């Protein structure tokens, strides 16, 4: 037999002025199951809580209803008090008779009657409440960072700084990412390598950080605090431990015609190579598509010349299994393919290049050693025209609907650097809008115009064509309302950026969601911007949306803070108001997993007795309570009603409905 206690709070005059609390407390005594009823001035006060605790003990209460302010205010307070008195805190319900009753009604009779109904409704619910226990799950004190660009590096360094072990999985042969390819960085114009490479070295030297380069995440199991990850270490045909990075192999390799990805294919590299001078790890890798030995079996020159004996043509992909408590996704971006923008003549003219290609052409370690020479004839371009928004803000289907965010700033940077280095060069920039919000950003852009005399033209380019060796850039100048044709030597396209496509696979592995543009979804756009909806998975950098280096670094550090906050805990407390599956009724139809935003539902084959001494194997759903957030989407999808939600069960809600509708 249930023994329910009801407590009506006056909240000073906040409730008592409109609701006749005495009458309510009196009337409620007649409710079946109610053994105690009281009213008090401030239930949330020390004395009020003591009243509650005493009553629970004295009257052996099995359930409690508090008629007071919103449960969003003091539900936690009252539940704590109940627990202190030995009652399971989830056996307590709050009826909101202040915000949703006394404060909005003036007529005392009306408000009193409504308060009665609200309390009866809460009693109806509490009758069906069951004691719930917060779960616990252990935390593996190690983090995984997927992607070794600036976002991954920063997150890893910050996590390691707090004393936790962290692995960086990078699919390329070196960490560094896109930032390593950049020449200078806005708005300060410091050299990208100069600020990045020390951080790369820090990673390599940290005893807390393990860099798994040339590796990819293959499989993810488990959940927050307990991820089990399988990592594929791709065969690099060079023993990482033996290679000294002496580069003799690169000098001797006869296969020299591979496209140098690091230099945006603007020059060639050998089949065995180290991507760039400051690579971490500073270890060679063999491109199996290009290596003569691996393709034909004949050659083996690098092996002959390697003093360290590091070359191993027999190497196979290896798999490493590791466990982590938290995962940071930092997979980065790439420029979009601009084949669909033939009007700019990119595919037909060597001297129409993308901004990232220009970065390499300006970089001292690039194919031209930092001397700006145009690709076609290696001469100094005298007139350079930049075209912004190539593929950004494009809903025609050729490009991307979003603003890529970084192009305005890097174009201003390029224009400025060129004018600084080669003052005799004429620089034009076609723009739709110049978007430079941020500290010292607009000042930076204005400097390009005011100090360096860069010609900004408000308008878009309609066509770039080659005429008598010049690139004719035909576009509109909307301010002067004229069509201009600028004979140029070099045309630079500010290409839109998109998430690195491997993020799709990562998102699937992590059961994290991605949006229509392949950016990873954050848990809340304003309040939880670095957390993925999947608990224990955090997002840093471009994988979540277009952003520049300062923003990326901030987000990476924010991720690290979240990860540290998780890893310092020994055990994770789990919300007990989560979904659970009644296996006897589950069809195993997979409908519920379709709507679970957290990937909390998996399916297992289980044997059931079906009478007559027989058994049968059925597929049934199983909810991981550590991952489930308790939204209830699955409960409605389930046709058999096998899925239910603790704390908000179907029967509880129906009993509330009945109590309200009873006339």
């Amino acid at each position, binding site marked *: 037999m249930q023994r329910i206690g009801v407590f009506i709070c006056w909240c000073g005059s906040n409730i008592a002025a409109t609701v006749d609390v005495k009458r309510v407390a009196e009337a409620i005594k007649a409710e079946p199951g109610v053994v105690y009823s009281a009213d008090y001035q401030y239930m949330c006060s020390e004395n009020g809580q003591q009243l509650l605790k005493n009553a629970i003990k004295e009257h052996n209460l099995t359930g409690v209803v508090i008629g007071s302010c919103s449960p969003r205010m003091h539900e936690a307070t009252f539940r704590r008090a109940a627990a202190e008195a030995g009652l399971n805190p989830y056996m307590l319900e709050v009826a909101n008779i202040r915000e949703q009753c006394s404060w909005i009604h003036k007529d005392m009779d009306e408000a009193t009657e409504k308060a009665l109904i609200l309390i009866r409704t809460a009693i109806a619910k509490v009758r069906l409440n069951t004691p719930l226990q917060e779960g616990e799950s252990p935390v593996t004190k190690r983090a995984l960072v997927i992607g070794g660009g600036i976002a991954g590096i920063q997150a890893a360094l910050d996590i390691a700084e707090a004393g936790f072990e962290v692995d960086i999985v990078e699919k390329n042969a070196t960490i560094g990412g896109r930032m390593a390819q950049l020449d200078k960085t806005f708005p300060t114009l410091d050299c990208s390598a100069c600020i990045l490479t020390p951080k790369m070295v820090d990673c390599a030297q940290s005893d807390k950080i393990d860099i798994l380069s040339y590796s990819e995440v293959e499989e993810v199991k488990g959940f927050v605090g307990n991820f089990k990850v399988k990592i594929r270490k791709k065969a690099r045909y060079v023993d990482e431990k033996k290679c000294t990075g002496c580069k003799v192999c690169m000098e001797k390799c006869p296969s020299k015609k591979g496209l140098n990805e690091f230099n945006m294919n603007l020059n060639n590299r050998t089949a065995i190579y180290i991507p760039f001078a400051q690579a971490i790890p500073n270890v060679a890798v063999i491109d199996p598509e290009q290596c003569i030995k691996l393709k034909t079996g004949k050659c083996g020159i690098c092996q002959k010349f390697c003093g360290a004996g590091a070359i191993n043509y027999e190497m196979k992909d290896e798999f490493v299994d590791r466990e982590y408590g938290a995962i940071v996704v930092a997979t980065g971006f790439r420029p979009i393919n601009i084949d669909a923008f033939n009007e700019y003549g990119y595919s037909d003219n060597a001297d129409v290049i993308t901004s990232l290609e220009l970065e390499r052409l300006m970089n001292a370690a690039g194919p031209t050693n930092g001397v700006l020479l145009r690709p076609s004839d290696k001469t100094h371009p005298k007139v350079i025209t930049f075209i912004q928004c190539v593929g950004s803000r494009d809903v025609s289907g050729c490009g991307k609907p979003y603003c890529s965010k970084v192009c305005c700033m890097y174009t201003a940077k390029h224009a400025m650097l060129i004018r600084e280095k080669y003052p005799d060069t004429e620089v034009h920039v076609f723009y739709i809008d110049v978007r430079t919000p941020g500290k010292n950003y607009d000042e930076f852009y204005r400097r390009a115009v005011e100090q360096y005399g860069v010609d900004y033209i408000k308008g878009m380019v309609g066509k770039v064509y080659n005429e008598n060796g010049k690139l004719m850039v035909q576009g509109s100048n909307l301010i002067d309302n004229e069509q201009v044709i600028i004979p140029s030597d070099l045309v630079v396209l500010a290409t839109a950026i998109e998430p690195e496509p491997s993020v799709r696979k990562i998102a699937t592995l992590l059961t994290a969601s991605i949006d229509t543009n392949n950016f990873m979804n954050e848990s809340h756009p304003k309040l939880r911007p670095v957390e993925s909806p999947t608990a224990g998975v955090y997002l840093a950098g471009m994988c979540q949306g277009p952003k520049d280096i300062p923003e990326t670094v901030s987000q990476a550090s924010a991720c690290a803070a979240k990860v540290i906050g998780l890893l310092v805990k020994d055990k994770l407390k789990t919300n007990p108001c989560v979904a659970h599956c009644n296996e006897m009724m589950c*069809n*195993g139809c997979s409908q519920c997993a*379709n709507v679970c935003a957290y990937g909390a539902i998996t399916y297992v084959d289980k044997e059931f007795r079906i009478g007559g001494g027989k058994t049968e194997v059925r597929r049934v759903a199983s909810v991981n309570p550590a991952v489930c957030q308790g939204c209830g989407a699955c409960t409605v999808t389930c046709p058999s*009603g096998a899925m239910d939600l603790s704390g908000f069960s179907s*029967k509880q809600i129906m009993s509330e409905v009945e109590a309200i509708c009873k006339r």
Partner: protein
Amino acid sequence: MTDLENKIIERAENLLESGEAARVVGWKKGEFYFDPSPAEFDSKEQLRDFVYNGFCGANLSKYLIQVSKKPGKTAVFLKPCDTFSLNQLVKEHRVNRDNIIAIGIECNGKLDIEKIKEKGVSAVTEASETGKEVTVSSLYGKSVMNKEDILLIKCLTCKSKKLVGVDETIVLGEMEEAPSDRFEEVEKLEKMTEAERFAFWKSQLSKCIRCNACRNVCPACSCVKCVFDNPQSGVAAKANDDEFEEQLFHIIRAFHVSGRCTDCGECSRVCPQRIPLHLLNRKFIKDINTCYGEYQAGEAADGKTPLTDYTVGDVEPNDVFNAGVRK
């Protein structure tokens, strides 16, 4: 016996004899010519009772939930509309597809014995189909009927003659697409006033005797335990319980199968009270098509169903009333 029936039985014998299949699911001769019923055949001898005639309207796919659990492979003969049901069950992991040999067979619409009886012909002994005509033989003689007049309701508006996801087919002639638009009747109801619609459904559903035939035959209603049989669900009915569950049974059933119902039409076929239950499910199908793009449950054996999916720009519930009406 028609060529088609011969071919089907031949294949069934073949499958059993070769051991390729441990059993065959098909239709078995009933007491009369017009009441064949779904059955399992384990041996060649049993196949003597196998029939495939104009009255084999029953959808065999639901039986596979249980049968596919038995050892060995099960061969099953499926009409085009039945193949969609099987595919949907495979999608929901209810049938182990690896244990099934699905044979798609020709169907040009099945006959409704009630409609024949209404025409004054009883004790039917045979119905032979030639194009648009059916010669119905009975103990009292022969009469030629227009096929369209005696087709099952579900066959008048057959959604497709496609045989989806089958392993092999037995189709001798070209199957003709259905003569009429399956959403016509739904539209007729939509064009009525709310009061008229209410009156219509009130008159229809008041005939319901809660025999559960619609639920028991429905391939989508295959829950291990139905909410209406579960006292914990809050909607289960016992004798003398309140009216809620009885009254709203059909609404909840339609909602539970929405996005999953393949429109096989079995619910209406088996209803002893001749309630046009398919019009409930079809409303959902039509709304889904209009609001979320054309979708045919059972067409694919994987992917999300419309109600477990979304797009950012979906129609708002308050605005759906106009969106649902097809132009």
